[in-house]
């Protein structure tokens, strides 16, 4: 059985988030840290500190912001940008085939 940390949304807690268990990801001690602060406040503090891994070796390819996105917590992710645009680097050409019976679209010059 795995549990999800209600602060940082780490999905592989080996124990339920209570009884002084500590999240290895954000370091929240449940039953202690969450007495005076809400989960959201604790999350904001973790994010403000850079969203760093707390205990032991950081899991390979782990990313704190992807973890929050997967839990649908978008509002707490730092926005480093003002605007984001997608583009496609291509030249476009559209050809309309009017006569499917063989009349060429571009007539060859004599």
């Amino acid at each position, binding site marked *: 059985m795995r549990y999800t940390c209600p602060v940082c949304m780490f999905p592989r807690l080996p124990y339920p988030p209570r009884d002084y268990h500590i999240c290895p990801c954000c370091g929240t001690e449940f039953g202690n840290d969450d007495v005076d602060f809400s989960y959201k406040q604790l999350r904001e503090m973790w994010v403000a500190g850079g969203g760093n891994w707390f205990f032991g070796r950081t899991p390979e390819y782990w990313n704190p912001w992807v973890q929050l*996105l997967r839990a649908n917590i978008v509002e707490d992710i730092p926005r480093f940008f003002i605007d*984001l*645009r997608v583009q496609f680097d291509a030249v476009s050409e559209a050809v309309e085939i009017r006569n499917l019976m063989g009349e060429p679209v571009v007539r060859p010059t004599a």
Partner: protein
Amino acid sequence: MLRPYICAACEKVIIDKDDVASLISVFSKITVTVPSEADIPKNAVAPKEWAVFSLWDTDLGDELKEYALCMQVLYPDQTQFSEVTKIKMKIEPNKRSQVVVRMLGFPIGQVGRYTINTWIEENQQRVFGPIEFKIGFEIVKQEQTHKTI
């Protein structure tokens, strides 16, 4: 054996009731505007939904095999962003198979060309690919304008 028909990145894929897919804003480049003093951490991610749509030709008998579509995003320095995504493919006889890998964010920690690798595995063994394409990423710094009285 599966053969690629389409593989592209776009902002959104809409699949209608007849399984017809429409790709919204096929893209090859992302540009973000940031404040001039901004310092973007290496692990930063923009909360931007995007998708990799792939469509595959199938052969008779493929429906009896267990194929997984795998997708990997590499930073411009070729290090990997997040885990490899693996999706079990749904295959029916005499039909193409299409897969939408929906991504919730785009990594913005490095400027340059990100690599998207897509491949097919059967029993954990790669049997096709990778199909590789690039997505360019650039940062535009916006100068702050200050009013003086």
